[in-house]
C-alpha cells in the first residue's frame, strides 16, 4: 500500500493494470464481463491475452449471468483499510459459467453466509466506482450442491 496521504481514506482503487482495465470499465456500465475462448468455449477471469486452457488468442467478451455460488468465504473482524471497516465478508464466488472470482457477499448478516450459498451479482457504489458484489439469491435458499472442485467449463 503505497498510497499518498491524501488518498488514504478513499476506497482502494483497482490496480493500474492493462489486463484488467476493460473489466473495470464494463463494471462502470453495470456489466460483469468474462473473457470467452472462441476456440474451446472456456470462460475465464480475470481477462488475459490468451485462453489459459488452450492458449488461443481468438477470444471475446461475454456478460456473465451474475448467478453463482459461494465456494468459500471469510469474515474479516480486523480492519485493514479505513474505507472498509470490519466486519465484512470476502468470498470466492464461482459463477455459473465457470470462472471464479474474489468478491464480497453483502445484503445479509456476516454470520449468515454459508459455503455453497446461491448468490447473484449486484453493483455497489464506492466513491466514484461501481464494485461487483454478490447477495443471496432472492428466496434466500442455500444451495444444496457442493461448490465444485476442479470444474472447468
Amino acid at each position: 500500500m503505497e498510497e499518498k496521504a491524501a488518498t488514504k481514506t478513499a476506497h482502494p482503487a483497482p490496480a493500474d493494470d492493462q489486463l484488467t482495465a476493460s473489466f473495470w470499465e464494463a463494471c462502470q456500465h453495470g456489466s460483469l464481463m468474462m473473457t470467452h475462448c472462441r476456440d474451446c468455449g472456456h470462460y475465464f477471469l480475470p481477462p488475459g491475452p490468451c485462453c489459459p486452457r488452450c492458449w488461443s488468442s481468438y477470444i471475446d467478451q461475454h456478460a456473465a449471468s451474475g448467478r453463482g455460488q459461494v465456494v468459500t468465504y471469510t469474515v474479516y473482524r480486523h480492519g485493514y483499510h479505513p474505507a472498509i471497516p470490519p466486519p465484512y465478508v470476502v468470498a470466492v464466488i464461482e459463477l455459473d459459467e465457470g470462472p471464479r472470482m474474489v468478491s464480497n457477499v453483502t445484503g445479509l448478516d456476516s454470520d449468515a453466509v454459508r459455503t455453497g450459498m446461491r448468490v447473484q451479482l449486484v453493483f455497489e457504489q464506492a466513491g466514484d466506482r461501481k464494485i461487483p458484489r454478490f447477495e443471496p439469491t432472492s428466496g434466500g435458499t442455500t444451495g444444496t450442491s457442493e461448490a465444485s472442485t476442479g470444474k472447468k467449463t
Partner: protein
Amino acid sequence: MSRGAVIAGVGHSEFGRLPGLTPWQLETTAARAAVADAGLEPGDVDGLLTDPGPAQGILDGITPHFLRLGAQLGLDPDYAGSEILGGAGSVGIVGRAVLAVEAGLCSACLCVYGDSPLSQPAAFGYGRGDDAVFGFFGAVGMHALAARRHAHNYGTRPEQLGEVVLAARAHAALTPHALKRELLSMDDYLASKPVAEPLRALDCCMVSDGAAAVLVLSAERAARLERSTVRVLSQAQAHSLQTMGNGTHFDQLPAARSAPRLFERAGLEPSDVDLALLYDCFSIVLLMQLEDYGFCARGEAGSFVENGGIAPGGRLPVNTSGGLLAECYGGGMMHVIEAVRQLRGEAGERQVADASVALVSGHGLGMNTHTGLLLGADR
C-alpha cells in the same frame, strides 16, 4: 536420489524486533556463522543464492538482492541469484544450490535468507492486484478461505487448529533461542481475537527481523571436512499459479502434487520420516500439509494433531524448534537449520531420538508456491 551435495554448515543472526540492525548486518552475520560452522573460510565460497524475504525483493527498483549482498561479502562467485517464491524461497534456494553443485557449476554455495519486516512494515497487510478493492488484505485472508473450506469439507474444529499452536509453543519451550516459549492452554487459544474467521490472531505466525544461512557443499569437498554433514535425499516443487483458475486451490496445497515425487525420488515413504519441519505461516497450512504429504488421510489432519500428535514425543514431531508460530519468522530457512541440527544430533533438550530422516517444506505467496526437501543424517 541426490548424491553429490550435502549441507555442511548452518548459522543465523538473532531474531526479533531489531531496529538498530540493517538486513545487511543480519545477513552477513548469518553468512559468517554458516561458513564457520562448516569449518571453511569466506574465500571457499563460490556460489551465492538469496531469499530476500517479504520486505526486500528488488531493491530501489533495479538492484537485485544477491548483487548487494554479494558486494558486501566480497564475492565474485561462479553461480548467483535471488529467488522470489515467498515463503517457499528458502527451501527453494537450498534445492537450487544442490542442483548447481551437482551440475558442477559451483562447489560451495551459500544460501541466505534475511529481512527486517518489523523495521519495514509496509510490506505486510498488502492487497495484491485488485484484491484491495474487496478488502481482501493480508496473507491471512487467503489462508482463512482455505481454513473455511477445510472446516466445510471435513468438519475441522477450531480446537484442532488450536492443537497446532499449542504444539508449536510446547516445542519452543524446549528451544533456548525461540521467541515465544510460554505454554498456551486451549482456553488461551480460543480466547484469541478473530482476525479473518475462522483464523484467530494466534493462528498467525509472528513477524521478525533476522537472517539465516546454509552452506551447500559438494560431497567431494565435504569428504575432507571434520564436521558431520547432512545429505540431501531429494527435492520437489509444485505451484498453483492460477489461484482462482485452479478449482482445487482452496482444498489442497500444491504439495499434494510434489509430495509423492519427493518420496519417490528418495525411495522413501511418509512412515520413514522421523520429524517434519513444515512451513507454518498459519496453523491451517500445517494441517493441510499433513494430508498433502500423506502422514494421514485427507480430512484427518484435525484428529492427527489431537492429543499431542505433533507435539514433543508425539507420533510425528513437527517443527521441533517452534516454527514460524513460536520460534521466529525465519523465512523457512530456520526450518532447514532445525532439520540439520536434529540430524546432526545437536538439538539438546528437544532432540528427537535417532532422527535420521527429516522433511522440510516451504510454502508461499497466495498459497501459490511449494517446495520440499528430504534430508538424511550422515551415518
